[in-house]
C-alpha cells in the first residue's frame, strides 16, 4: 500500500472515529509500523475515554461542506451517557437532538454563540443547561473550535461538553450561605441596637421581670447592681410571683402604702386590668432607708402573644427626683401666688358661718399684715379682729354684704376701717359663698384689698375739682366787676367829649371857647386812649401773652431815662426829686428794661401826682448780691404826698381802685397803674410792698432780680470798632498819594466821609471854608511839604470859629517817641497815632471822638 492510502485510512478513522484495520498490502516493516500506529491510536482513544469519564465530559463533531452546510454530526458516547441516553437510537447524531434539550432560558444565547462561532470564527465557550433523561436539567460547559476550509467556510466544528452541574450547585450553595450569613449579621446588628435602646430606656428601672400572670412564674430580665441585697435575694430565691411580691411588700413598702400595693399587685386583678389597659403603673413609698430613697413606681406592661396566657413585663423604679420636681413646682406656684397677692395688698380669707355659732375666719399672711397683726400672732380666728377695725357706721352694711353673697353670689364693697395705730384706710372686700358645702352653715371665701390710695386719690381729685370750680366762679365774678368798672371809666370821658362838643356847637363864634373845648376834648381823648392801652396791657399781662424780651441794659441809663420823662412833670408841680443810687456794683444787667421803666414810672409818677405842693420824692436805688449770677435791685420811692388809708392800701394793687381826692390832675389816671405794676413785678419774679400814713406820705419798696451781664466788656469792644464811626466826616491831610489812598480807603470802608488835603496848608484852607461842625475830626500826617501837620494844627487852633478849639485832631507820624508825642500835644493835637496805618486802631480812636460828640 502506498503511504497516501495509509494516510487516507487514518484520516477516515479520525473522521468517523471508527477504528478499522488498515488493509495492508505492503512490506513487513510498513505493516509493523501500521500495527504500531493502530495500537497507539487505540491507546490514545482509551485514554481519551478515561479522561471523559473522569471529568464527565463528552465530545461532539460537526462536519460541513464547502457551502457551509452540515453534512455530519457526531455526538460522543460519553455525551450520550451523560444525558442519560444509550445509543444513536434514542439520541441520534443530529443537531436538533442537542438543541431540543437546551433549557429555554439558555437556548437563545447558546444558539447565537454556536452560530457565531461556526460562521464567524472565534472561540466557542458557553455554559448552558440541557435536559437529561432522568435527572432533569444539568449544567454543561461547552468549549469548541471551528476548522475552516481555505475560503473560510467552516469545515469542522468540534468541542467538549463538561457536566458542571456539581460545581454549579456548589457555587450556588456557597453563594446562598454567604447571603444568609450577611442577613444573619444584619439581624444580629439590629438586635444589638434594639438591645441597647432597650437598655437605655429601662435604665431607670432597678429591676425588670417577665411575669406570666397565669402560671405565676417569672423570669428575671434585668437587675441593677444597686439593688439592695435583700431585694435581689428575694427575686432570685423565689421564682414565684406571689411569694416574691408578698415578701417585698412586707420588707420594703411603707405601712401607709402596703395595703394599697398589695391590692394593686394582686395577680388576678392585675391580669384583668393589664388586659384591658395594656399598662398599669402606680406609685408607693418605701420604708425609711439610710440612703433616703423614698418614692417608687411599679409598672406592668402587657406582652402577651396569645389570648391564652398573660405575660407582662414588670419593672420597678425610683421616682424621688420626679416627686421632688413636682413638689418644687407646686411650692413655686404657691409662692408666686402669695407674692402676687401680697404685692397687690390683697389677702385671702375664708369664713365658716354656722347658725348659733360665732363665725370662724381664717386669713392668710397678707391679710394679717393688712390688719397690722405681726406674723407671730397669726390667730386661728381673726373674725373679731377684723370686725373691730371696720368703721362703726359701715359694720352693718358689711355684714349685709356677707349675707347677700350666700344667696346672690359674688359681692363687693369698699368701706373705711382702721387697724392698730394706722390712720383710716379703705378696704375692698370681695366675697363669694361656696355652694354645696358639706356640713352645716355656710362657707364664705374672698379677699380684702387695701384700696386706701385709690380712694384717697379720688377724694383729692374731687377736692381739686371743687376748688377749680370755685376759682373759675370767682374769676368770672372779678371779670364782671372789671368790665363794669371799665365801662364806667370809658363812658365818663366819652360823655365828657360829647358834652364839650355840644358846648362847642352851641358857641361857634366864641373862638377862645372853641379853643378851650378842643383842648379839653383832646385831654379826654388822650385819657381814653391811655385807659384803653392800660386795659390792653393789663389783659395781656393777665393772659400771660406778654412776651418778655430779655436784653442787656445799663441801670443808670434806665434810671436816667425815667428821670428825663418825669422831671418835666415834677418841675411843673414844683416837686423836688432826689435820685440816689448806692452800691451799684454791676451796672450792666440782663433783663427787661422796658418793664422796669414802666414799673418805676408808674410808682414815681404816682408819687409826684399825689404829692403836696413843693413836696419831694426821694428815690433810692440799691443793689445787693443774689445767688450766683444774680443781683437784686431795690427801689425805695418815698413821697411827701397825701398818703393812703389802711383800708385802701389793702386794695391798692387791684384794678380801678383810686383814692380820687387830692389827685392833682383833673383826671386821676386810669386806676390801672398799680394793678399793672403789681403784675409786672410778679412776672419779673420780684416783690412790691408799701407803707403809708395819711397826711405824711407813702413809701413803696420794689425788689427785682436781674442777671449780671458778664459779656459786657467783650461786647462793647467788638461793637465799637467798625460801625460807630459811620457817618463821621473826616479831613485827611497826607502828601504821599499811596499813603493817602490807603487811609482814605480804610476810612471809607467804615462809612466815614473823607475830604483829602495834600498838605497842611490845604488842610487849613479846607477847614476854614467848612461849616462849623461839618468836620468831626482831622487826621494829619506830620511830615508834609508846604506846611507840615504840626504847623497846620497850630494854625487851626488859632482860628476863631467855635469848633476850632474843639475839633479832634489826630497826628499820623512815623515817629512815636515821647518827644514827638509831646510836640503833637503842644501843637494842640489830641492824639498821636504811629505809622504804619492800622485800621482798627484808627477806628477805635475815631469812635472815642464820635461818642464825645
Amino acid at each position, binding site marked *: 500500500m502506498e503511504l497516501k492510502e495509509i494516510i487516507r485510512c487514518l484520516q477516515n478513522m479520525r473522521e468517523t472515529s471508527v477504528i478499522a484495520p488498515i488493509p495492508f498490502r505492503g512490506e513487513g516493516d510498513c505493516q509493523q509500523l501500521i500495527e504500531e500506529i493502530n495500537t497507539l491510536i487505540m491507546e490514545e482513544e482509551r485514554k481519551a475515554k478515561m479522561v471523559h469519564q473522569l471529568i464527565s465530559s463528552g465530545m461532539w463533531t460537526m462536519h460541513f461542506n464547502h457551502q457551509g452546510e452540515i453534512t455530519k454530526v457526531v455526538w460522543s458516547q460519553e455525551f450520550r451517557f451523560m444525558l442519560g441516553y444509550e445509543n444513536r437510537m434514542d439520541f441520534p447524531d443530529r443537531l436538533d437532538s442537542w438543541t431540543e434539550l437546551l433549557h429555554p432560558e439558555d437556548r437563545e444565547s447558546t444558539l447565537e454563540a454556536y452560530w457565531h462561532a461556526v460562521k464567524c470564527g472565534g472561540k466557542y465557550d458557553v455554559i448552558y443547561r440541557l435536559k437529561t433523561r432522568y435527572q432533569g436539567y444539568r449544567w454543561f460547559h461547552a468549549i469548541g473550535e471551528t476548522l475552516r476550509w481555505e475560503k473560510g467556510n467552516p469545515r469542522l466544528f468540534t468541542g467538549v461538553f463538561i457536566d458542571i452541574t456539581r460545581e454549579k450547585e456548589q457555587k450556588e450553595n456557597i453563594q446562598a450561605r454567604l447571603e444568609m450569613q450577611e442577613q444573619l449579621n444584619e439581624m444580629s446588628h439590629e438586635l444589638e441596637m434594639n438591645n441597647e435602646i432597650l437598655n437605655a430606656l429601662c435604665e431607670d428601672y432597678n429591676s425588670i421581670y417577665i411575669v406570666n400572670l397565669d402560671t405565676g412564674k417569672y423570669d428575671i430580665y434585668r437587675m441593677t447592681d444597686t439593688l439592695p441585697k435583700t431585694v435581689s435575694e428575694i427575686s432570685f430565691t423565689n421564682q414565684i410571683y406571689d411569694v416574691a411580691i408578698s415578701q417585698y411588700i412586707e420588707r420594703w413598702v411603707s405601712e401607709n402604702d402596703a395595703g394599697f400595693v398589695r391590692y394593686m399587685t394582686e395577680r388576678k386583678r392585675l391580669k384583668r386590668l393589664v388586659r384591658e389597659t395594656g399598662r398599669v403603673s402606680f406609685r408607693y413609698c418605701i420604708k425609711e432607708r439610710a440612703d433616703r430613697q423614698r418614692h417608687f413606681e411599679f409598672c406592668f406592661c402587657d406582652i402577651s402573644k396569645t389570648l391564652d396566657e398573660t405575660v407582662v413585663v414588670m419593672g420597678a423604679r425610683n421616682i424621688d427626683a420626679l416627686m421632688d420636681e413636682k413638689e418644687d413646682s407646686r411650692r413655686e406656684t404657691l409662692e408666686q401666688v402669695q407674692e402676687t397677692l401680697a404685692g397687690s395688698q390683697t389677702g385671702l380669707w375664708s369664713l365658716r358661718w354656722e347658725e348659733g355659732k360665732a363665725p370662724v375666719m381664717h386669713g392668710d399672711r397678707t391679710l394679717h399684715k393688712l390688719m397690722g397683726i405681726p406674723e407671730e400672732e397669726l390667730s386661728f380666728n381673726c373674725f373679731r379682729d377684723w370686725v373691730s377695725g371696720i368703721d362703726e357706721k359701715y359694720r352693718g352694711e358689711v355684714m349685709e354684704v356677707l349675707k347677700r353673697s350666700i344667696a346672690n353670689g359674688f359681692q363687693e364693697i369698699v368701706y373705711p376701717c382702721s387697724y392698730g395705730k394706722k390712720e383710716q384706710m379703705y378696704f375692698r372686700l370681695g366675697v363669694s359663698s361656696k355652694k354645696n358645702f358639706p356640713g352645716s352653715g355656710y362657707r364664705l371665701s374672698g379677699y380684702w384689698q387695701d384700696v386706701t390710695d385709690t380712694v384717697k386719690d379720688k377724694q383729692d381729685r374731687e377736692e381739686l375739682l371743687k376748688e377749680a370750680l370755685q376759682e373759675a366762679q370767682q374769676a368770672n365774678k372779678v371779670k364782671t366787676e372789671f368790665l363794669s368798672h371799665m365801662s364806667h371809666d370809658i363812658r365818663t370821658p366819652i360823655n365828657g367829649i360829647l358834652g364839650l362838643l355840644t358846648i362847642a356847637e352851641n358857641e361857634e363864634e366864641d373862638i377862645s371857647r372853641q379853643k378851650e373845648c378842643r383842648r379839653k376834648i383832646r385831654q379826654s381823648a388822650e385819657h381814653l386812649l391811655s385807659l384803653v392801652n392800660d386795659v390792653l396791657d393789663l389783659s395781656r399781662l393777665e393772659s400771660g401773652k406778654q412776651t418778655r424780651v430779655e436784653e442787656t441794659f445799663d441801670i443808670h441809663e434806665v434810671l436816667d431815662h425815667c428821670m428825663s420823662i418825669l422831671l418835666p412833670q415834677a418841675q411843673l408841680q414844683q416837686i423836688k426829686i432826689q435820685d440816689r443810687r448806692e452800691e451799684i456794683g454791676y451796672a450792666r444787667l440782663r433783663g427787661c428794661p422796658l418793664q422796669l421803666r414802666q414799673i418805676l414810672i408808674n410808682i414815681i409818677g404816682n408819687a409826684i401826682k399825689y404829692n403836696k405842693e413843693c413836696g419831694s420824692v426821694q428815690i433810692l436805688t440799691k443793689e445787693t448780691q443774689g445767688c450766683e449770677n444774680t443781683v437784686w435791685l431795690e427801689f425805695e420811692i418815698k413821697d411827701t404826698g397825701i398818703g393812703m388809708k389802711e383800708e385802701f392800701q389793702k386794695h391798692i394793687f387791684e384794678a380801678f381802685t383810686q383814692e380820687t381826692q387830692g389827685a392833682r390832675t383833673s383826671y386821676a389816671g386810669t386806676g390801672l397803674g398799680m394793678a399793672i405794676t403789681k403784675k409786672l413785678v410778679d412776672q419779673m419774679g420780684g416783690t412790691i410792698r408799701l407803707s403809708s400814713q395819711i397826711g405824711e406820705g407813702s413809701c413803696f419798696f420794689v425788689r427785682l432780680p436781674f442777671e449780671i451781664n458778664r459779656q459786657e466788656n467783650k461786647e462793647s469792644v467788638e461793637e465799637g470798632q467798625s460801625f460807630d464811626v459811620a457817618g463821621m466826616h473826616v479831613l485827611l491831610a497826607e502828601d*504821599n498819594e499811596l499813603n493817602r*489812598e490807603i487811609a482814605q480807603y480804610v476810612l471809607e470802608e467804615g462809612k466815614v466821609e473823607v475830604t483829602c488835603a495834600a498838605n497842611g496848608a490845604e488842610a487849613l484852607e479846607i477847614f476854614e471854608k467848612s461849616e462849623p461842625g461839618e468836620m468831626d475830626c482831622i487826621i494829619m500826617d506830620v511830615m508834609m511839604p508846604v506846611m507840615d501837620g504840626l504847623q497846620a494844627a497850630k494854625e487851626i487852633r488859632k482860628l476863631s470859629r467855635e469848633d476850632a478849639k474843639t475839633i479832634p485832631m489826630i497826628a499820623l507820624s512815623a515817629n512815636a517817641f515821647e518827644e514827638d508825642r509831646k510836640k503833637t500835644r503842644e501843637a494842640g493835637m489830641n492824639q498821636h497815632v504811629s505809622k504804619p496805618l*492800622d485800621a482798627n486802631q484808627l477806628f477805635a480812636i475815631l469812635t472815642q471822638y464820635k461818642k464825645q460828640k
Partner: protein
Amino acid sequence: MNLAECYGEMGADYQGTMQRLCSEKLIERIVLKFLEDPSFGQLQEGLEMHNHQQAFQAAHTLKGISQNLGFTKLGEASAELTDSLRKALDSTAYVQFEQVKTEYTTAIRTIEKYRAGK
C-alpha cells in the same frame, strides 16, 4: 502767584499787613500802584544831584510807604537810609542806598511778575 506768595517772595509781611489794613483788595491795589510811585526815583535823583533835602524826603516817603505796605526788607533798608540822611548826606548814605536799591528792584520785579500772572 497770589498776593501772599508775591509778598513771600520779596520777603514782605502779608499777614501783618492784612491785619492792619483788613482788605486784600486795598492791598493789591496799592501794591500795583507802588510800581508807579516816584519816591524811589526821587531818592535816586536826590542822591545823584547831591540834593540832601530831596533825598531825605524821598527816603522818608519810601520808608513810610514800605512800612504801610508791609514791605519789611525795603522798609528796613529805607529806614536806615532815612536815619543816615537825617544827619548827613555822606558816603554811608550811598552805601545804604545800594541796599535800598536791591530791595526795591526785587520788590518791583516780584510785583511785575505778580501782575503778569494775573
